[in-house]
């Protein structure tokens, strides 16, 4: 080591690991289960027969009142869930799960990542990247497609992340000696 060398702590941004993203998502789902899903669980039970798949489907198909209530519940839960992800990522760049795992959402300037910087994403970008939550066609197709994109791409970005020009990243620190 050269005498008088300068030691510097540098922070870098890299793509977030898939494992961290999965755990962060699970944490967020737990929070949503408690805050958003639980208040409506009683209404769901009262509105439909919960049995085998065919029993459940039959009870909905044959009962317009049940079907109407379930549709309303789905719409409300979807809006509140999207609100959670969108507002958190827009204001803070992170959801609670992401805060725990130290990952965050950034806007990317180009699709091909050369250099990642943290730029807080706009509201529209946050909304767009979270549309996979909507439980109706064609958005439900994303539940199959998104994991495929994460695994197949080198930058582990989902389809909606490509469309919204966002990315989930994490920081890491490195000591540089000059």
């Amino acid at each position, binding site marked *: 080591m050269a005498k008088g060398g300068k030691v510097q702590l*540098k*922070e870098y*941004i890299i793509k977030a690991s898939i494992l961290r993203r999965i755990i962060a998502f699970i944490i967020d789902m737990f*929070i949503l289960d408690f*805050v*958003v899903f*639980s*208040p*409506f669980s*009683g*209404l769901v*039970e*009262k*509105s*439909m*027969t*919960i*049995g085998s798949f065919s029993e459940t489907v039959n*009870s909905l198909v*044959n*009962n*317009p*009142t*049940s079907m109407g*209530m379930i549709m*309303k*519940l789905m719409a*409300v839960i979807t809006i*509140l869930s999207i*609100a*959670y992800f969108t*507002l*958190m990522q827009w*204001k*803070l*760049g*992170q959801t*609670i799960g992401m*805060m725990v795992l130290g990952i*965050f959402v950034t806007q990317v300037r180009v699709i091909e990542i050369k*250099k990642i*910087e*943290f*730029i*807080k994403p706009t509201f529209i970008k946050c909304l767009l990247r979270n549309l996979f939550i909507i439980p109706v066609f064609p958005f439900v197709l994303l539940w199959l497609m998104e994991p495929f994109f994460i695994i197949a791409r080198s930058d582990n970005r989902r389809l909606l992340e490509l469309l919204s020009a966002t990315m989930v990243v994490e*920081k890491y620190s490195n000591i540089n000696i000059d």
Partner: protein
Amino acid sequence: MKKVDGIEQQKSGSGKWLFALLLVIFLGFASYFIAGILSENIFEGSGGPGNVALIPIEGAIMPSKSGFFFSEAVTSSQDVIEKIRIADENPSVKAILFEINSPGGTPVASQEIAEKIKKSKKLTIAWIREAGVSGAYWVASSTDYIVASKISMVGSVGVIASYLEFSQTFNKYGVNYQKLTAGEYKDIGSPYRKMSADEESMMQEQLDYLQTIFLNDVVESRNLSYTQKQEISTGMFFVAGNAEHLHLVDLYGGKEEAVKYIEHKLNITSKIIEYKEKTTFFDILTGMTSKASYYMGEGIGSALLRANMANSLNIRI
């Protein structure tokens, strides 16, 4: 936002967590609030699983639920009709069981429910508990089958419009009643003067007419003989076990017997779903505050008197 080495600095740790906490609390409140609103629009059980709809008829049968703050429990005929409609439209529901514990009510409200029951395509059973008399018996008689305890009160197929008349009390204190009406019989039934023989005869004619409709409907529904009709036309109530000869009840028993009958008749395993309205805290609060605010200014005593005066000609079955 400040950039350090190309990295935008995010909000400080405590600020982030505070925002997150506030958002979660807001979403929680929004969820419970919306769930509360949505649950008010359905009768509990109206869309749920179950093949036997249990509809309670408790207290006086009235056209609507609005009433005085301290009033007894009432059943709104409109609510019952709506519940019957929902049960009729639900293909999962095979039978409707009416749990009746009522002293009767107003003629029209009772008839409305009776007519709706007759139009139902589902098997309808009346389960009478303490009392199913007068208008409540009209409702029960419209069902396909009546189950009651041997000591339930049934019958009272009659009409009542009795009231207190204060003319002599007023005379004693030098209070005169000044009649001012357009229409000779407009104040018939006023508690401030004695009813004339003429008026009494006319009132009686109206009550007899009401009773005729009530009685004929019960006789037809229960397929009663002339002798049975004569006996129940007195307006007397009967203890079910002591009036077996009148065929006012089909089976002695309670809920269990009623359910067993349904299962045997329809060859099903019953799963009961109770249709009842959820009275939310919001309902209680607004009902209490609106009535309490009004009457506080007037004085509850004077308000009671005014309510009684307005209902002096109160026809009940």
